[in-house]
């Protein structure tokens, strides 16, 4: 075992692979951060649609969620990778394909989190808001969502951990994230054990730190009921 392969290629692995500075359009964080933000926006819309009274909104939202939750992420990535060129008549860069696939896929999971968050707000809040004369939209905006968001934080961070790990799958269409960067280095150096162990540790540090944070937040009871 020879861990010099890590120190020699450290800046490529971390700067190019993990963060996204370098000759390739890549980076784990450069994919994961926009994906969670955009996915949350889309997920909020879908989650709200699922709770809507009108079946014209709630049924398509339900179908969307159930569809994406029943299909492997690899499959979704391939869908966008192969179908988008046919639809647009030209191919898109890996980054755009990966980002679209992740946003659409994560939105289905985030929609469920948003829905659960909204449903966790006590019914009395809705009644009180209605009693003060608020219409549905401002009630959502000023009363329900701020409280729901607080309840959602642990689940959202957890979902971000899942997403961060899932971005490794973008490497199968050639997106240079941390995993692909390790593969590139491995093709030259043939040191699979050291390289894959190293990136495992990098992913682990990120996920574990965040999951500790979630647990502290949950144990502190600092979340809901206020």
């Amino acid at each position, binding site marked *: 075992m020879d861990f010099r392969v890590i120190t020699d290629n450290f800046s490529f692995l971390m700067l190019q692979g993990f963060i996204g500075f370098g000759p390739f359009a890549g980076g784990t964080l450069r994919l994961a951060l926009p994906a969670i933000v955009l996915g949350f926006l889309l997920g909020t819309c879908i989650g709200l649609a699922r709770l809507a009274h009108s079946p014209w909104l709630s049924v398509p939202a339900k179908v969307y969620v159930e*569809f994406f939750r*029943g*299909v*492997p*992420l*690899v*499959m979704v990535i*391939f*869908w966008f990778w*192969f*179908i988008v060129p*046919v*639809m647009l008549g030209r191919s898109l860069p890996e980054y755009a394909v990966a980002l679209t696939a992740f946003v659409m896929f994560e939105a289905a999971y985030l929609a469920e*989190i948003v829905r659960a968050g909204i449903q966790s707000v006590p019914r009395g809040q809705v009644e009180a808001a209605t009693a003060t004369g608020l219409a549905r939209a401002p009630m959502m905006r000023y009363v329900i969502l701020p409280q729901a968001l607080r309840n959602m934080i642990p*689940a959202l961070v*957890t*979902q971000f*951990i*899942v997403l961060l*790990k*899932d971005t*490794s*799958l973008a*490497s*199968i269409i050639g997106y240079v994230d941390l*995993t692909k960067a*390790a*593969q590139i280095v*491995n093709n030259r150096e043939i040191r*699979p*054990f050291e*390289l*894959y*162990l190293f*990136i*495992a540790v990098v*992913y*682990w540090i990120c*996920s*574990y730190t965040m*999951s500790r944070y979630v647990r502290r937040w949950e144990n502190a009871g600092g979340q809901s009921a206020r």
Partner: protein
Amino acid sequence: MNYNFDWSVLWSGQTGAWLLDGVLVTLKISSLAWLAAVALGILSGALRTAPITLLRWLAAAYVEFFRNVPLLVWMFFWYFGMPPLLPHALQEWLLDHGAEFWAGVCALGVYHGARFSEVIRAGIHAIPRTQFEAAVSTGLTVPQAYRLIIVPIALRLIVPPATNETLNLLKNSSVALTIGVAELTFQTRQIETYTARAFEALAAGTLIYLLLCLAIAAFMSRVERSMAIPGMIARGQSGEP
């Protein structure tokens, strides 16, 4: 978008056989990995609640290490990183017997074992402490109390979150295509490569995954009904990473 659909590519020539092979490999790798994951999950989940600190700590280390790293990295690790460290005879045997398949089983089984462990731990925590105390006071040893009382009850409580995990495992088996296991997603891509019919191939693969998931969910909901203990529900942490 002008695209002429030609669904016949799915059954003309070899493609039908490829799809069927893919489904069979997906089911095979998933079920083997599922058995490994459930065994590891029960063992480590039970140990995490055990009265011995060292065992608790070891089980926690296993769970936290494996579930916080992407499955894809584990696939590469087991397929590329592990074999050079094995004895030569075992390496030879693996090369002749589909090393990628067994690496896939290991990766899926160990990764999902860590996730199952959390589900089972939640199930054990849902059992009132008095149940354990009663078992020990009737003269059972601690291992016996776990084997005969605690684990069987926990398993009956965790059917819904375990269903979720089973579906995740089935879907995650698609990641094995990266190390060359010819499972369903792999075959779907192969059909795309040979026929240049991306839409039809992907639609077929997607539909099969959806049907498999639906079938498992339906089966497990029957299991859930027959296994449920009236008045007790375990809150699984299905959203855990």
